């Protein structure tokens, strides 16, 4: 079983200035400043949607194709960007994480592994082992992104 260990770079990925974190931060910040200067879509909802998309994009770009979840996320982002005028009635493109496409009735019998497969990008085509590995990496990256956004919030609030 191949192990994509984080010691590809000798550095500890938990260190503050790990290359992938810097890539994530610089990508996200560039997108953020670009969004701030956009005058065409100045609606609040439009801006926050763009920021949300930038968050997932910076996560995916910082990891690239090294992981199955990031490759799946990159595919979703690229397929969405090809639709300039998405028709809300025919949502054929894959939804970004966090936005359920359809309201599903809660199934208490729903298997946890199935639930996990739906939460992790690309999860539906993974076997058990791969799913668990990818999930751990996805969580690490997602929480890093959240911390980055919180740090930005704090720095502007003063």
């Amino acid at each position, binding site marked *: 079983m191949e192990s994509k260990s984080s010691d590809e770079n000798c550095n500890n990925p938990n260190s503050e200035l790990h290359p992938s974190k810097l890539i994530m931060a610089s990508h996200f910040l560039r997108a953020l400043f670009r969004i701030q*200067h956009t005058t065409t879509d100045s609606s609040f909802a439009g801006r926050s949607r763009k920021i949300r998309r930038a968050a997932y994009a910076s996560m995916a770009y910082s990891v690239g194709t090294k992981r199955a979840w990031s490759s799946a996320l990159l595919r979703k982002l690229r397929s969405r960007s090809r639709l300039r005028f998405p028709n809300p009635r025919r949502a054929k493109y894959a939804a970004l994480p966090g936005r359920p496409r359809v309201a599903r009735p809660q199934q208490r019998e729903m298997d946890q592994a199935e639930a996990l497969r739906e939460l992790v990008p690309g999860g539906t085509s993974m076997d058990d082992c*791969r799913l668990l590995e990818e999930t751990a990496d996805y969580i690490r990256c997602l929480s890093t992104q959240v911390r980055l956004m919180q740090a930005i919030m704090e720095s*502007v609030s003063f």
Partner: protein
Amino acid sequence: MSSRRPRSWQSSSASRITDEQINDLVSKLQAVLPEARIRRSDRVSAAKVLQETCNYIRSLHREVDDLSERLSELLASTESSSAQAAIIRSLLM
């Protein structure tokens, strides 16, 4: 400790996945969850770890949504160059 696998576990056709491998990966997953959700010292069932993992991922997705909205408000209300300077300064120091 028996590890009753959730019903939808799929086996890879290429290799036989042992219970030990699964348990190893589950414990690595447990290590990534925050202490408030699941104590790392406890040996909990795989199902519990998966459940907490799903809950944690959902809460992270919600946080991304929430922070996106707050950042959107914040950027609209602050003058851009001073905001940019403040952000970069705080992230690099």
